[in-house]
């Protein structure tokens, strides 16, 4: 049996990689995928702590996170399709209409 801090460390690493993807990339599709990585990292932490405490709540919360991730991907990609139809680009630096 391993201690859960190793899982927490892995979760932190995955989350950091996801943050890098969101901040450093320009391609909107890859940014959405990085968000998925971040949500997955959180799930790893939930499951690790949940099984350490012998409590099912961690699993239930991970389930909720997965639901939100699926909804987020569906709506995010729909927005992306609408933007591409309008602007013919998925480069987020060119999508600055709302920028003051």
């Amino acid at each position, binding site marked *: 049996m391993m201690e859960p801090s190793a899982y*927490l460390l892995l979760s932190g690493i995955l989350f950091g990689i996801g*943050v890098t993807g969101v901040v450093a990339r320009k391609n909107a599709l890859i940014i959405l*995928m990085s968000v998925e990585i971040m949500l997955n990292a959180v799930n790893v932490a939930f499951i690790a702590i949940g099984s*350490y405490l012998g409590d*099912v709540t961690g699993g239930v919360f991970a389930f909720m996170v997965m639901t939100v991730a*699926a909804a987020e991907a569906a*709506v995010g990609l*729909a927005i992306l399709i609408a933007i591409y139809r309008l602007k013919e680009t998925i480069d987020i630096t060119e999508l600055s209409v709302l920028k003051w």
Partner: protein
Amino acid sequence: MEPILFIVFGAIAVGGSIMVVTRRHPLASALYLILTLFAVAALFVLRQAHFLAAIQVIVYAGAVVVLFIFVIMLINVPESRLPVERLTGVRFLAVIVAGLLILEGALVARRFGLAGTPAADSGSVEAVGRALFTDYLLAFEVTSVLLLAAVIGAIALAKKKI
């Protein structure tokens, strides 16, 4: 046995997610994302969360990533019109800040110092199902409303004319 498998699948997950973030073409990223999600599902199995591992493979790798690949092929940005990305200035700083974030997470995780205990029945289909349909029934039902809202929102956004 668990430490070896943890290291193997953890390394696959970290390597895969690095590839997701660094690939130029989004389709390559999506395929590496599948690899990462499978590795994470294996980690769930290591933590006795079998139900969540199955959901991870079915919902994430089976539905979400397929949706991503659908959209990538639907909008089909030609190779020449993909955004040109170089590691300069602010974006280089972003990588450093993410590194610091990981370091901070590592320090916090070390401070936790949790000793391993034998996992109780915390992730089987029966345990999760029982919790979902008793203690978290309201949250579970609200989830269905959320999904319905997402479906309607996605259709309304992506359709040319409603």
